[in-house]
């Protein structure tokens, strides 16, 4: 019903008119579902090629795509990749393509469809995708890339946020250089918020008489939730539970940190300049309790100091001078560099020079594959795994696209860390700093989530080496409400000065009532979150699988889950076909980073759940002591074998 659409007149010079461009996101407890819908009409007397080109966040799962071309509807289904390809080859759609390509822009991937439409024909595209919002540096960031390509008669973006914990703040930064100042309308309640962005055609114009649209960029919504309890928020709904854990008010744990920096020839120029700039700030941010050193490598491996040193002002100044003098040249010997860093940390640990309450981190910054020394990636992986002590976490930052990012991910995931891609541009320095800031404040070590009930199954990774301030650990699982009416969790962890056991109980009745009152709330958020985590973790396990048989088994599980949950994963493809089934398109997922979880800071392990550790049972408890002593028979009072101070 395009003619009925409300909206202002756009110039009709363009043969294809964009009638409507609508984006709607709903976020329910960190689970975001986004729909992008675009309606166009060919006003010219000639057939026209119409493109639907949208960017979706990396790591998002596409769940649905529909298209109506001149009255013919195409709907999508998820198939195993080879099945999908075979179907596609049987009945390719004429004059239509659908694809999905990995984009080289930051954190985004392109989904692209092109159709040829006859004169006067209308076309409607609709894409759905799901993602999980990971907390970084104290907030969640929801980005919607808006690129309608032309002025739209009706442009509308709505973001609905439902967070049962309540929202601490919500902010829509100006990402359009002031062009749309005052256009986003924010309404925020305690637990719900709505951001609406509806620029008129006049507002969309780049300049008063321009036909070009200024809507080309990201609408960003940032928010954080309230956290009353350290033990986190345990939400149970529809047979699944999700547990969000982001404690605050803990002192940072001292860290022993080794920066391993690639200074090979390929780093020459902007990459090195930006790395040096970032390192200077990072070194300044070290705390006095921290210990550090710097290893720089090309075909040779050098160290600023052979041992870890305290992060005093003098040492930091000296390290900065050392880094500033680095001249990139030569090859890349990642193997030797990592082994040297591990040796320094291992030696310090063996000699008792490390604070037993500290955490040890290696941050590798590299822009390329090894070219000198050990070249075989699997051998490097093996060497590192064999040498590294199990209290060290390895984080890898891959600059640019010449680096085998999957290798870095495997390397880090296997050694209690994660990898992140850094884009080699003017922004490299801030990306490096941002990543460092995420891991600069370890608050807890050895964080284990226990759900010691028979009613809880299929728990996602529940053991994490570290917890860093500003982030959030998410654990999910299945729950059988017929066996128990509530879920209990027991988290054990080590903070800077103590062992910690945190208990919490779910409050499912409240949540059900709360969600039922909101039409935008996604009742499947627990299920989606569980599936998202499980599939990503299985993909990472698959990439680290030691045998082909294990890999096959994991593949089978991922595939089945992808089909059950109707999502495109690296093992599935989306077949888009018309009702008659004689025209098909294929949307294949890009070769993805086979590791958990895009955007998440944690890669954990799975361990069996246990009860409260024995040390945490206070002995004797005041109550048991009281009972053990017993009440005096003459008085109907509690036993009084205590001295006490109270108020009337």
């Amino acid at each position, binding site marked *: 019903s395009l003619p009925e659409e409300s909206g202002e007149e756009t110039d009709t010079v363009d043969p294809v008119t964009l009638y409507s461009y609508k984006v709607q996101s709903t976020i329910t407890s960190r689970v975001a579902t986004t729909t992008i819908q675009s309606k166009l009409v060919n006003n010219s007397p000639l057939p026209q090629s119409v493109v639907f080109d949208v960017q979706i966040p990396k790591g998002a799962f596409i769940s649905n795509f529909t298209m109506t071309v001149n009255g013919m509807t195409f709907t999508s289904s998820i198939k195993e990749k080879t099945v999908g390809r075979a179907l596609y080859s049987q009945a390719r759609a004429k004059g239509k393509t659908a694809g999905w390509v990995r984009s080289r822009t930051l954190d985004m991937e392109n989904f692209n469809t092109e159709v040829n439409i006859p004169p006067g024909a209308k076309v409607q595209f609709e894409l759905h995708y799901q993602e999980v919002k990971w907390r970084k540096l104290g907030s969640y960031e929801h980005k919607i890339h808006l690129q309608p390509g032309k002025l739209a008669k009706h442009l509308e973006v709505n973001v609905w946020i439902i967070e049962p914990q309540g929202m601490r703040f919500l902010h829509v930064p100006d990402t359009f250089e002031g062009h749309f100042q005052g256009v986003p309308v924010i309404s925020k309640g305690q637990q719900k918020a709505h951001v609406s962005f509806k620029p008129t055609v006049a507002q969309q114009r780049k300049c008063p008489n321009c036909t070009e649209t200024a809507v080309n960029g990201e609408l960003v919504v940032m928010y954080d939730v309230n956290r009353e309890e350290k033990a986190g928020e345990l939400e149970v709904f529809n047979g699944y539970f999700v547990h969000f854990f982001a404690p605050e*008010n803990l002192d940072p744990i001292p860290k022993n940190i080794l920066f391993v920096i690639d200074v090979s020839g390929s780093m020459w120029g902007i990459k090195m300049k930006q790395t040096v700039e970032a390192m200077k700030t990072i070194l300044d941010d070290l705390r006095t309790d921290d210990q550090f050193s710097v290893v720089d490598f090309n075909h040779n491996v050098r160290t600023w100091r052979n041992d870890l040193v305290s992060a005093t002002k003098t040492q930091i100044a000296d390290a900065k001078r050392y880094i500033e003098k680095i001249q990139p040249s030569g090859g890349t010997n990642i193997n030797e560099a990592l082994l040297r860093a591990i040796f320094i940390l291992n030696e310090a640990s063996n000699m008792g020079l490390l604070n037993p309450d500290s955490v040890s981190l290696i941050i590798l910054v590299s822009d390329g594959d090894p070219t000198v020394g050990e070249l075989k990636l699997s051998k490097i992986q093996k060497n590192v795994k064999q040498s590294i002590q199990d209290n060290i976490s390895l984080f890898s930052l891959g600059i640019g696209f010449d680096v085998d990012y999957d290798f870095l991910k495997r390397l880090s995931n296997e050694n209690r860390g994660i990898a992140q891609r850094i884009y080699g541009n003017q922004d490299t320095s801030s990306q490096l700093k941002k990543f460092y800031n995420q891991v600069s404040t370890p608050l807890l070590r050895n964080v284990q989530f226990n759900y010691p009930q028979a009613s809880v199954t299929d728990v996602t990774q529940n053991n994490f080496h570290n917890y860093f301030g500003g982030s959030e650990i998410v654990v999910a699982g299945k729950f059988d409400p017929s066996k128990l009416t509530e879920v209990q969790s027991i988290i054990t962890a080590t903070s800077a000065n103590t062992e910690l056991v945190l208990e919490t109980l779910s409050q499912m009745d409240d949540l059900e009532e709360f969600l039922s009152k909101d039409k935008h709330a996604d009742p499947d958020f627990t299920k989606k979150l569980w599936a998202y985590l499980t599939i990503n973790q299985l993909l990472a396990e698959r990439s680290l699988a030691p045998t082909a048989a294990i890999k096959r088994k994991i593949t089978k599980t991922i595939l089945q889950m992808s089909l059950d949950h109707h999502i495109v994963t690296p093992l599935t493809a989306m077949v888009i076909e018309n009702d008659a089934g004689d025209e098909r398109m294929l949307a294949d997922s890009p070769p993805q980073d086979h590791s958990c979880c895009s955007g998440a800071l944690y890669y954990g392990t799975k361990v069996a759940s246990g009860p*409260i550790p024995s040390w945490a049972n*206070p002995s*004797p408890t*005041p109550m048991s002591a009281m009972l053990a002593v017993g009440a005096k028979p003459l008085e*109907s009072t*509690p036993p009084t074998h205590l001295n006490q*101070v*109270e*108020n009337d």
Partner: protein
Amino acid sequence: PHFIIYLPKSKRNICFNIDSEPGKILSLVSDPESGIVVNGQLIGAKRAENGKLSTYFGKLGFYFQKEGMKIEISTETITLSSGSSTSRLSWSDTAHLGNSRVLISVKKEKSVTLTLNKELFFSVLLHRVWRKHPVNVDFLGIYAPPIDKFSPRVHGLLGQFMQEPAIHIFNERPGKEPGKPEASMEVKGHKLTVTRGLQKDYRTDIVFGTDVPCWFVHNSGKGFIDGHYKDYFVPQLYSFLKRP
């Protein structure tokens, strides 16, 4: 605050009140030999009633010197400091914090139990009042067992009774008010007039409390406690009591 002192040998409860000013810190247990301090800081009600401002314990400080641990329990948070680092819990958590020697167990919105070396324990109860109550404020109660784990030098308003004084209560007689008999009590060389009364123990019923019959010592425990109650003021939450 009202104090209920249980004397195991004579199997009697003796009560007294301490009325002071908000901000003052009272020494409850001070044992320099064992390195244990328990102090309580007073807070006031929102306003005075009948010309009198009620005071309550708003903050309790525990210092375990040998373990190098300081624990501050307020009506808002429970904070454990050790060396230069701090761990903080809110009353919204059910949690256990500790190491091999000190254990802090928090029962969400109810109580904190501190256990030292699995043999000495203190219990703190949280009393929440309606936030908009015109007068009352949240406050804390503390419970300690009269056990012989302290050194002979232990003192403080509670600590001094860890070693039981000899008491003799006699000449029970009708009091000025019906149902509140009086008696004479000999303790620490003093002869006092005490009144039979009831005080609240909130361990089993945190809202209404349970009445504990006790002999009430007037004038802020004068004669029953060593010296004057003002002798128990300490400058800091973790100060040992300096004995005159």
